[in-house]
């Protein structure tokens, strides 16, 4: 039981716990905070997997940008626990059950596979920004360019939808 494994388990527990927090907490703001914590835990996992750059990006983009956006919107609508609409416990139970069933089914299916793949502990350098940059701009330049189209349409969308029509 070496340090990495201990770290793995800690991060796993944290991730799942916080994820549950996201789903269960009645106050939207808490949900956001939990989600950010989940992201931190996931970034921790990235570090364990030698995906250092990914970890950083995850913190910056998700926790930093996206979640702040969420938080901002929630604040703007000043939603809080008492404004939060609650589903009846029955519906919630149904949700839990069906989600759980999904989980169990997939696990049952996949556990039949004898996956030989093992995460070897010695560090590799694929996650380094240098390598990633070369791969990205050598092999994946097309998707990189295409994502610009995606952002363009997203931008248009934000404008078209978000802008108040004065009429």
């Amino acid at each position, binding site marked *: 039981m070496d340090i990495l494994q201990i770290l793995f388990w800690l991060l796993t527990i944290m991730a799942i716990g916080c994820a549950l927090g996201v789903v269960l907490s009645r106050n939207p703001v808490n949900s956001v905070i939990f989600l950010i914590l989940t992201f931190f835990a996931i970034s921790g996992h990235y570090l364990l997997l030698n995906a250092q750059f990914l970890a950083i990006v995850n913190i910056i983009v998700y926790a930093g940008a996206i979640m702040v956006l969420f938080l901002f919107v929630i604040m703007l609508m000043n939603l809080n626990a008492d404004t939060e609409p609650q*589903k009846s416990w029955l519906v919630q139970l149904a*949700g839990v059950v*069906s*989600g759980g*069933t*999904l989980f169990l*089914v*997939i696990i*049952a*299916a996949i556990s039949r596979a004898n996956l030989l793949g093992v995460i070897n502990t010695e560090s590799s350098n694929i996650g380094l920004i240098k390598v990633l940059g070369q791969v990205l701009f050598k092999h994946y330049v097309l998707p990189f360019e295409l994502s610009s189209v995606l952002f363009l349409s997203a931008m248009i969308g934000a404008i078209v939808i978000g802008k108040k029509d004065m009429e």
Partner: protein
Amino acid sequence: MIQLAYLIPLFPLLGFLVNGLGWKSMPKQAAGFLASLMMLVSFGLSLGVFFEVKGGAADTIIPLFNFIQAGKLLIPFAFKIDALSSLFLLIITGVGFLIHVYSTSYMHDDEGVVKYFAYLNLFVFSMLLLVMGANYLIMFIGWEGVGLCSYLLIGFWFKNRDYTNAAKKAFVMNRIGDLGFLVGMMLVLYHFSTLSYNELFAQVSNNQAVMSGGTYTWIAICFFIGAMGKSAQLPLYTWLPDAMAGPTPVSALIHAATMVTAGIYMIARSSAIYNHSEAALHFIAIIGLLTALLAASIAIRQYDIKKVLAYSTVSQLGFMFLAIGCGAYTTAVFHVMTHAFFKALLFLGSGSVIHAMGGEQDIRSMGGLGKKMRITQATFFIGCVAIAGIPPFAGFFSKDEILAAAYAHNPVLYYAALAAALMTAFYMFRLYFLTFTGKFRGTHEQEHHLHESPIAMTFPLMVLALLAAISGFVGLPEVFSEHHALNEFLSTAVTNGVHHHLEHSTEYMLMGLSVTLVVAMILFAYAKTKKPDFQPNTGLAKVLENKWYVDELYNAVIVNPLLQFSSFLDRIIERKGIDGGVNGVGKLVRWGADRMRLLQNGQVGAYLFTMVIGIVLIFVIGLFCVTI
């Protein structure tokens, strides 16, 4: 001459076409004259043909064209002239001509007279087809044709619903028989793959070994069912009395002299087949006898002059079939001939009576007519004597021959037939006495109106009376003469069944017995009708007056159940069952649609939830149920 035989049916057809197409413009007298002329011509031709045949001309086939030729099936439209057909030609055209002449005067004041003569000619045409055809299909064509004409003529006064009902009844009952005929033809085709008489009978005489007796029996029975319908035998006889709805000459021509004897003709024609089947012959004998008895018994208690004659016709037909059943086809044909004469005579006489009575047909309001209409009385009397079987009138010889044959076949048959014959004598003379003797029981204006019919009506009566008197001599029994003229004439065409020879003494005895009893019956009838009293009948008499309630029985057992069943089919099975099922599918779809709509309840949560359920299901199916 024989080669011109195809002209015989042609002239009536011509008459039909002219009168039929000109049914609006044709003047009445012209129509009657034309029709009678046509009949006269074809009668002349038939005479020529007859004597040529009598002169020993061989059987002739006159092919006209190929009617149906499809694959193996080849049916030519051809005529066959031999002794049998030539004899029938004579009867049909001869009696037909007389009745045409009679009609010209009898129908002169009916507005549909042109139509009437058209129908009459058409009937003669079909009847001639029936007897001249060289194969069963042509016979069938004539067979159905005469059925059609009888339908049209029974329903001639179509405004009266009862008359049209009678017509419909006649046609439908004939159809039942025709089905038997059709099946018979099918069987013949199936086993011999031909319908023409010559080929068929040739095969029959050759390959008896091949065909089992059963086959012949079936064919024979089927044909006889056809005959039952056409010749009004049990159980299909009830249409004939109703058929009296038609004009009286029609009853004389169609329902006494010619059409109803078609059955006899068919069986005589097919004698070769019937000789192969004892069973069928027995069956025919039984049916014929029963019919004779039943009809005669009913005739005893009828008051409608035409009904009496109708039932007597049925009973006489029964006699003929009895003869056939005993294998004596020529005897049957003999009786057909004599019966044609005296029954036509009787009908026409009754027609003249009805004419005089101004449409009255109930003998209870007649009586003493003899004083006013001598000729009618005289001829009618001859008719009665002939049918009753008093020598030397025609009826005696033919009927006596039948009785003899019956006795030879089986004494029981003889006694039963004799009983029927006695009843015949009784009811005929009852009719005669009630009509012509005693004092008049009708209203006064009827009495004033009473008169002898014009010559156009009485002339045929006299001719027929003459024939009824003398025509018996063509068939003198061998006790009197060495050779039986008719038998010998027909022997080329018809082969009688096994004929048990009778001792002359026996034959004398039988004749004596029947004659004495008949005379006794006549006297009895005279006694009964001396002081006629018409109390409502009771007991057996009532049953007889109501014709043994046979019509009621048929309605209760066959007609009404059928109607109820079909209305059940219509209301329940068709509308509720099948159509309901079809519509039910549509309803089901709409119902399902209504339910399915509710799934789309507009809740994102619900949608996601259903989706996840679906996903789970897909995984379960895809991962655990599908075996790769």
